[in-house]
Structure formats: C-alpha cells, structure tokens
C-alpha cells in the first residue's frame, strides 16, 4: 500500500527525516510517535506527496505521491492537516462533501446523490450527522475534528494520513476519533497512519507503533513491545512504564523518571 525506501528530507541545511524505510500493508492502523521536532509531520507530508524526498523514494499504490496529479492521488489517500481553519462560513456538510471533489473533474462538479449518500454515511460514522447544517467554525474543536474525519472517510481513500487528529480533544472525543478510525479501516480494508502525542491512544488502538527520534525510525512494531523499549525511552528522554489494565488486555503507558523505567 505504501512503501518508503531510504527517505530523507531537509529544510535548508537541517535534516529532518533520515533514511526512513518502511512498508505499510492493508488494515493497519499505525501511530507515529516521537518528541517534538522528531520529524513526524514532515514524514507524513512526504507520504502524502506534499513534500518530495531529497533522497530515497515514496511509493503509494505504485504512484509517486509528490508527482501524481492531486485528484488521482486523492482517490487513493487523504491527508488531514493538524491546522485546519476556514476563512469563510462553510457549513459542516459542505466541508464533508469536499471529500467528494476528487470524483468530479469537469464543469461545476456539483455533488450527486451518490456523493451525498457517502457523506451521510461518513457523518453518521463520525457522529456529526446532526451538525450537518451548522457552520463549521461555530461547532466545537472536537466536532470539527470529527467532521474532518468524515471528510476523509467520504473520500473513500484506502489510506488515511492524520496529523495529530486528537490534539486538544478531551479523552472521550479523542477515543471517539480512534474508534471511528478503527471501524472505518476494518470495514473497507483501508489503512491509517496517525501522528500522535497520546501514547495511551497509540497503545490502545494502533496495530503498529513507529517511534521517530531526530528523523530516524528507532522502533517499529506492536505497541506494547515498542512503547516499553529502551529506544522509546531514549527518544522521549523519559522512562516509560508500560502495563496492562487488570482484567483486560488494554495497554497503558505512564511516562516517568528514567531510572524507574522497566
């Protein structure tokens, strides 16, 4: 689905992503974690074709995302930027329906009944159907995030890239975002890559966690194993206490002093 081989990227003379190689298959929910400035967002933008690698290559469904026409790529992958602010008073449903733009190229590209159908289903999945006619900038931050997720879902892309989809959300809303993500990817055999700072969400929902440190992948694998590794502690400059809630298989992470780490 997505293959990166030896990908590096620099802003001017500062190397942000170093020699990243990874393969992403179907039905994976990958969380990319790492300290601030570790290169997570840049890596996600390289995957989305918003940046072109300085070295190495990214292939997404056998296409080079940086050179593929955007409307062709948009049917394969969607990308949710961390910062999404509207300059104009679009309604929630108008924002969600933008997810269908890639399916109309000519003329006015007015949305068809099938598009509306896809949007309605996506909005129900993300629990924003009741907000359809509200102004996007008038609903709460959590609702905006869920509406954007609905936009990505109604785009019906096989790969969803999300940059901090739960930033500034309370625990219940953050979980709702990941629950929707899990349900959608399972139903459609799709995959998702989310950059997140919330290690507990990563532990709970991800099928795979990738740790970035100074632009390089230092750990990659199942959440529990990766989060408990020495490489993760080193990447975050803090120890990680990883445990399992009694009576369930839910993994939790508590950062703490290095000497106390497992």
């Amino acid at each position, binding site marked *: 689905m997505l293959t990166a081989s030896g990908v590096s990227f620099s802003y001017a003379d500062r190397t942000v992503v170093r020699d990243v190689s990874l393969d992403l298959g179907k039905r994976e929910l990958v969380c990319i974690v790492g300290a601030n400035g570790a290169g997570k967002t840049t890596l996600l933008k390289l995957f989305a074709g918003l940046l072109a690698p300085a070295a190495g290559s990214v292939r997404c469904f056998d296409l080079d995302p940086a050179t593929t026409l955007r409307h062709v790529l948009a049917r394969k992958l969607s990308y949710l930027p961390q910062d999404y*602010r509207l300059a104009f008073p679009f309604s929630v449903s108008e924002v969600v329906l933008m997810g269908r733009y890639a399916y109309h190229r000519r003329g006015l590209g007015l949305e068809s009944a099938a598009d509306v159908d896809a949007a309605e289903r996506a909005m129900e999945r993300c629990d924003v159907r009741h907000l359809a006619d509200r102004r996007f900038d008038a609903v709460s931050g959590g609702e905006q995030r869920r509406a954007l997720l609905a936009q990505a879902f109604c785009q019906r892309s096989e790969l969803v890239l999300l940059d901090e989809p739960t930033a500034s959300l309370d625990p219940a809303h953050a979980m709702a975002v990941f629950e929707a993500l899990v349900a959608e990817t399972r139903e459609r055999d799709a995959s998702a890559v989310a950059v997140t700072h919330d290690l507990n969400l990563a532990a709970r929902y991800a099928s795979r966690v990738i740790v970035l440190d100074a632009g390089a992948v230092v750990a990659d694998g199942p959440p529990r194993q990766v989060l408990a590794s020495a490489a993760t502690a080193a990447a975050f400059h803090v120890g990680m206490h990883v445990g399992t809630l009694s009576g369930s298989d839910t993994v939790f992470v508590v950062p703490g002093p290095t000497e106390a780490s497992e």
Partner: protein
Amino acid sequence: MSLQRLTLRRLIVALIAALLAMVAIMLVCSLLGADMSGGKFSFLSITDVWHGITGHETGASRIYVFARLPRVLAAAVVGAGLAGAGCAFQAVLRNPLAEPYTLGVSSGASLAAVLAIRFGADSTLLGGSALSLASLGGAGLTVYLVWRLGKIGNTLPPATLLLAGITVATFCSAATMFIQHTSSFVELSRMIYWFMGGLDLTSYGELGRASLLIGIGVIVLVLYGRDLNAVSTGADAAASVGVNASRTITVVFAAASVIVGAAISIAGPIGFIGLLTPHAMRAMVGADHRALLPVSMAAGAALLVVCDTIARVAFFPNELPVGIVTALIGAPFFVYLLLREKSRGQLWGG
C-alpha cells in the same frame, strides 16, 4: 432530512434571480436621468426608445443608444468583473478583507496612467484609448512582478504573494506621487480625475475590448469555483481533496488580474465594489464559490450601475466621479466588516 448543499436547482434559481434583478436594475437606471427643466428626475419613455431603435431615430433613442446604454453596459461589465475578481482574491488569499487591488494591480495601472498623461501619450498617440492601453499594460506588468516575487519554487503561498503585492504597490504609489510632483496643473487635474474613476467617456470600441477580456477572465473564475472552495481551506487541505492549490492560485490570480486590468483601463480604479459585493452575497447564498462567484458578479454589476446612476443624476448638472459614490457607500460597510471580523477574532481567517 437531506443534506443542505448546493444542488443544480438551487444554483439555477439563485442565478436566475440574480440575473433578473440585475437586468431590471440596468433597465431602470438606463432610462433614468436628471430632469433638464428643473424637476428632480425624468425617465426616457421605453416605447419612445424602442420605436427609435426599431424605426425612425428619435431624440430619446439617440440619448439612449449613444449616451446611456454604453455607460450602463460599461458599469455592468466593470462591476461584474470587480466583484468576481474580489471574490477570487479573497478565496486565494484566504482573507475576507482582500479586494481586487490588494495585490497592487491598481497601483501599477495608475503609475502607467500618470506616465501616459505626464508624457502626453494620451493626447498624441492614439487619443483617449492610449490611456486605457497604458493602464492595462501597467496592470499586466505589476501582476507579473508580484507573481515572480511571490513565487517560492512551484508554490505561491498567500502570505508571500500578499507581501510582494504590498511591496510593489508601495513602490508604484511612490513613483506615481513623484510623477505627479513634476507635473503641470493641467496634467495633475487630469490624473486626479482618472484616479477617481468614471464611466462617462466609454466608447463602444473600448467597451467591446474590455468586455472580451473581462468575459474570458470571468469564465475561467467560474470554472475554478469549486477548486476555490478547497483552496480557501489551505494548500494542504486542498491537496488532500484532490485540488492542486498552487496551480489554482496561479490560474485564478492571472484571470482575476486580466479582469481588473481591463476594468481599470475603461473606468479607472473604482474601489469597494470588489470588497463589499462578495461579502454581502456570501451572507445570502453561502460560501460555496460555485454559486457565490456568479451571483456576486450579477450583484456587482447592479451595484455599480446604481452607483453610476447616482453619480450621474444626484448633483445634475454637475456629475460626480463614480469612485466617490462607491467609496462613500463602501467605506462605512468596510468599517462594519472590520468590526464584525474583529469581534469574531478572525480578522485574518487563518
């Protein structure tokens, strides 16, 4: 309950309503004149005009065909163009306070116009149309400069575009003032008259040329209406839904600039139409540019026709430059807009 969205039916209804209103306003304004015999207003008889055009020429039909009609048509074409260009600039710059002249197009056109007046090109070379050709050229040159300065690699970020526009505009304004400083009193008064904007001297030839350019630009803008929706949410978000923001910004910027250059070439830099019309229409038809662009154009046409009619008859026998009327109506609206955006804490819209 179906999703509230732009359907073909809604689009057609909005367009027909806007066009009908526009044509009705154009018709009434073209017949309205000041009463020469001391009364307030007078109307040309529509039957007199019609008979004059289809049969023997009458006084009413002469006035209509040679004075009123080209003027009303020019106001409509310029108004529609400015409103469409303003709407497009607001979308690509993601700034509700942008207008057709934000990126310095009018400053470049003005500099070229004062140069033409200062060096007598307007009176010796090709008569009045040399002035309009000069301003069109000036507008084109400015746009090219701003585009080159604003470009970073293959992208055209709104912030650098804005900075480039402001820089070029400031330079052109300074150069314009320098030229004015060295001009004679007669030249100076002609320059000031040009700055105030006016539609009183439009010939059918000039109107035809400007209409062609504005028409082409307007068609391009309407075709990019949907992509403008995506671009107004930011370059990365636009890319995600399949819209190449840089290409859209470049094409729309070029089309809108052609429109503005052509509008300035026949009417001078008329302000506020391009700023306030898209705002007023956004409140009526929503933010979707597929409807907003054409409806704003019809409204801009109607608004400038009304403003020009006020300029023509309000102080008869003296005529106001139409730019004064649009500014007197536009400035209070601009203040209202500023206060509203401030209170919502989103002056720059991200």
